[in-house]
């Protein structure tokens, strides 16, 4: 009986030490007010609906639009990359809009 208890305790201990298989936590770019990004970095964000969306990069100092990309968003987690070699500014806004041009996300980016 004693040895059975020991074996059970060991089993419980081993099981409790196993890494839990929790869902991978993604960086949600628009949940943070400010993010530091580097060239080629992946950005992730969640969309409620599938559809055409745009991401706009704005020079936050000069208040000028640098570029805008249109993409097909999926419902759920979306992953896109940001490239910074042609971006002259260090401080940017990243703005997410839906097809009706309604802003659904905005964050500050600091280019590393």
């Amino acid at each position: 009986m004693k040895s059975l208890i020991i074996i059970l305790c060991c089993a419980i201990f081993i099981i409790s030490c196993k890494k839990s298989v929790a869902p991978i936590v993604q960086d949600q770019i628009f949940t943070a007010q400010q993010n530091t990004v580097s060239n080629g970095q992946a950005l992730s964000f969640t969309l409620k609906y599938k559809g055409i969306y745009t991401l706009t990069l704005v020079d936050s100092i000069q208040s000028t639009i640098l570029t805008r990309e249109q993409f097909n968003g999926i419902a759920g987690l979306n992953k896109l990359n940001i490239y910074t070699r042609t971006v002259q500014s260090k401080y940017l806004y990243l703005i997410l809009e839906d097809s009706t041009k309604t802003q659904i996300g905005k964050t500050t980016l600091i280019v590393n």
Partner: protein
Amino acid sequence: MKKLIVTLLILLISIVAHSQSGMGYLNYTIYNIVNNGAGQYANSSTDFANMFDLTKGATVYSSGTTVASNLLYFNGSFFTTVPNGGNYFGIRTTGYFIPQETGTYIFEIDGDDAEDFAINGTVIVSNYGPHGFTGYKYGTVNLIAGQIYTFVSRFEQWAGGWGMYLQWKRPSQSTYSIQSNEVYSSQPTSITPPLSVQFNFNFNTLITPTNFSANAYDYANNAYTLTPNNAATVISSNNIVDVSNIIDTAKNKAEGLGLTTTTNLTTLYNGIITVSDVYLAFQEYSNKGLLGGTMGTYFTSAIQYITADVNNDGVFNETDCYLLLEHLTGKQSLVSKLSNMLKLYNKSTYDSINHTNWSSYSGLKSIVPFTLPSGKYNDTFYVSTAWLGDVNLTYSSKQTAGVATFDVSSQNQIYSYIVTQLVGDSVYATITLNPMLQQVTGVQYHLNYDSSMLQYQRTQFTTAGNSTNFSTDKSSYINFGSLVTDGSTTLDNTTKYLIVFKPSVKLTNALGLITITPIDAVNQAGNQLKITIN
């Protein structure tokens, strides 16, 4: 110990006393003349000499060195004590005078009682005899900048009120003052004239003065050659360069100044010559009439003819317009070496150029002639600059008169929209124009792209009217736009540019691989417009 402290104190005092000399200081000797051998009053230079002669009864009351103004400007009191409660004394002030300018100096003197002033032993101005302040007497003397002259003033007080004012003005000045940088209590061992040349660049953010260096030239046999001790001297951020060390030391002068640069001229010129420059040139030319014999109304400054005469032949004509257009559209570059592209002028010459004489000031102007020293010990020369092809003078010096004004006000604003998309295995950038209420005749943009990941493929133009459309791959950006050179039609809101790139790696999206920079726009009237990307 006590001795040591006293010695140190004396040493300190002597150091301080010694430092109180040199430029701005003069030496003085106060004489007690109650028993002088010249009588009561100095009625001449000789009387002064006798009055202060220690062998003839005068005694030294005190002497020393102090700032010039203490010794040259006083009335009823003195910076230190005087003998006999302010009676029966004289002051002899000595030192050196080193003019800042060459030419006629005027000295003024007034006093109570007698006084005189001498340069190199020659009395320049005097007011001898017994009197109160009688008003200034004036004396002139021709002096050479940088030369060392002796400086002596003498003053005598017998009784009653007393004082002396001695001031001067340089050849270039209109008012009198004591100019402390021209007087010295002791003879300087060497003098290096600080000569400076100021460049009146009208630089904007594209042009950095510190990327330019000045070179000094001698002139002989109708040719300029670098001075033997020339070294390219970097212009400071405030557009000033000091050329004291690169003038010809044998001649003690330089006769010309030129520039070199570390700026990438190709990059620079893509910013200097834009659609509004080219449009203005075409409009001015067509506005002159078939024979070109009359002045157009588009150029408001004569310098614009010089900058628009891009082949430097002294004539502004169709050839220049098309050379400008070909540079804009990338068919032929106007970029060569700096000496061909940047014209230097003496500022007063530049300002005197007008619509009838401009052609004689065209051609290559890579060296601005001048002479140093110019008669002044410390001088500043103003140099105006004009960039070839800068027809609207955005980057060139403005003339004092006949200034071209191309200010972009908020009313002169138009909009453009950009969107990029990954379409199949290509990246599309679409740029559309919203001219608002403007009659737009020209637009120009740079589309910057990451050349490590994208290859430029083609540009598709959708433009109304008879515009010249251009798109040139500059390896890191595309210079593109449209220009209606004759202004007969305008670019409306159907204007669209589709620029296609092929990715060199597999992409899932292209955010940031392409960015846009609006460069320039112009309307039918030749006014520059501001493009806002929305």
